């Protein structure tokens, strides 16, 4: 049988191709170009070679920002994933409660990032904020604008509030797709609640949990708006995560060369993590 060759489809891809060229390829190429040069504006550039890359890779400032970033992402994953699974397990399986829970759960996800930041800023202010004032009244010395621990506590709490529902919704979807036959079999065997979770629910949730971890990792790794509005990276540089530090360097100091080099290193880390998660997901697909 002869296969007919029809290449017309390529024509329909052209608009997307042009769009991607202008919003991804051209800016990315520009960043690569900037990362090897120095500029003081006016489109005048001088060649610097690999100087910025070396400077960034060996700078304490970058190491600190990267460390803070991994610490933050680690903490929020460590809290949100177990908490999300736990909440999904306790959610009702039928009746009006399902809709109520789902709507309540989706609320934080619908709020824009900068609004979340502003909300939590006011909420946590030590003098007038509900959280800050209450904590101080209870005898805690709480001030997120001046104390590093409090700033971290507030930032993590805000992220947990904003994004745990995503893990809940995904886990809940995974749980709902388990056939009742599995639970019946477990009951006949007299399996404990833990055994049911460990050997039925967790393996069945593996796929959605991989996606949940990937989404939460990427979102928290690239987090900018919420901590920027909440703490502005402070006190000092205590909550200046990678993206905040990057913007400080690029727009605050107008160090376009080092900032471009830093964005590329940042980009490669993100790309590597994406690739690892993609392979994990593909392996899950192949197994099921």
């Amino acid at each position, binding site marked *: 049988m002869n296969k007919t060759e029809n290449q017309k489809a390529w024509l329909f891809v052209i608009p997307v191709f042009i769009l991607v060229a202008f919003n991804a390829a*051209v800016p990315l*190429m*520009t960043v*690569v*170009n*900037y990362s*090897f*040069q120095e*500029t*003081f*504006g*006016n*489109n*005048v*550039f001088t*060649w610097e070679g*690999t100087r910025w*890359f*070396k400077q960034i*890779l*060996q700078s304490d400032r970058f190491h600190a920002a990267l460390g803070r970033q991994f610490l933050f992402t680690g903490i929020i994953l460590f809290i949100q994933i177990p908490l999300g699974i736990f909440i999904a397990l306790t959610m009702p399986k039928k009746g009006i409660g399902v809709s109520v829970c789902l709507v309540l759960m989706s609320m934080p996800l619908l709020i824009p990032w900068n609004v979340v930041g502003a909300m939590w800023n006011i909420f946590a202010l030590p003098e007038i904020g509900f959280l800050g004032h209450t904590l101080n009244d209870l005898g805690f010395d709480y001030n997120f604008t001046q104390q590093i621990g409090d700033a971290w506590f507030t930032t993590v709490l805000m992220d947990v509030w904003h994004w745990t529902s995503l893990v809940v919704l995904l886990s809940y979807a995974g749980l709902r797709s388990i056939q009742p036959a599995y639970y019946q079999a477990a009951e006949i065997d007299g399996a404990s609640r833990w055994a049911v979770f460990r050997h039925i629910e967790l393996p069945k949730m593996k796929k959605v949990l991989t996606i949940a971890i990937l989404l939460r990792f990427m979102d928290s790794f690239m987090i900018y708006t919420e901590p920027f509005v909440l703490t502005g990276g402070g006190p000092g540089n205590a909550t200046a995560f990678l993206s905040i530090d990057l913007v400080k360097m690029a727009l605050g100091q107008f160090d376009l060369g080092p900032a471009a080099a830093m964005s590329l*290193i940042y980009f*490669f880390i993100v*790309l*590597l993590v994406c*690739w690892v998660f993609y*392979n994990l997901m*593909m392996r899950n697909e*192949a197994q099921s």
Partner: protein
Amino acid sequence: MIIVPSNKILLLGWESVSESREKGFFDFEFITWMAWTWQTAVFFIFIALCLFLMVIWEKKVPGGSPRRGILGLDTTRGDRLFISLLSAAFIHLAWLGIVGVILWIATIISFLFSIVVFRYF
């Protein structure tokens, strides 16, 4: 960034003291803000060439020769190119961060590693 026409640059800052800049080969007015250099151009041409060669290879031997490599990963030719390029980036960065001089050794290591990737991964 603010894009200022280059004739205005001559009225601003340091440029006002110098003679008008000699027009280089890559001085296309409308993309001066992209700050092209021949080195980065060569890099992107190399990437484009890689992709072009992959297309030719796919035409000659269709299917991408999928297999399970030594790491237990299911890879096709495209995956192997991606792994090679990404690891080349990390090898260069590691070399710059740790050693810092004679960067072309990192290039050679990357090239050798990509041969290993294409052969065994």
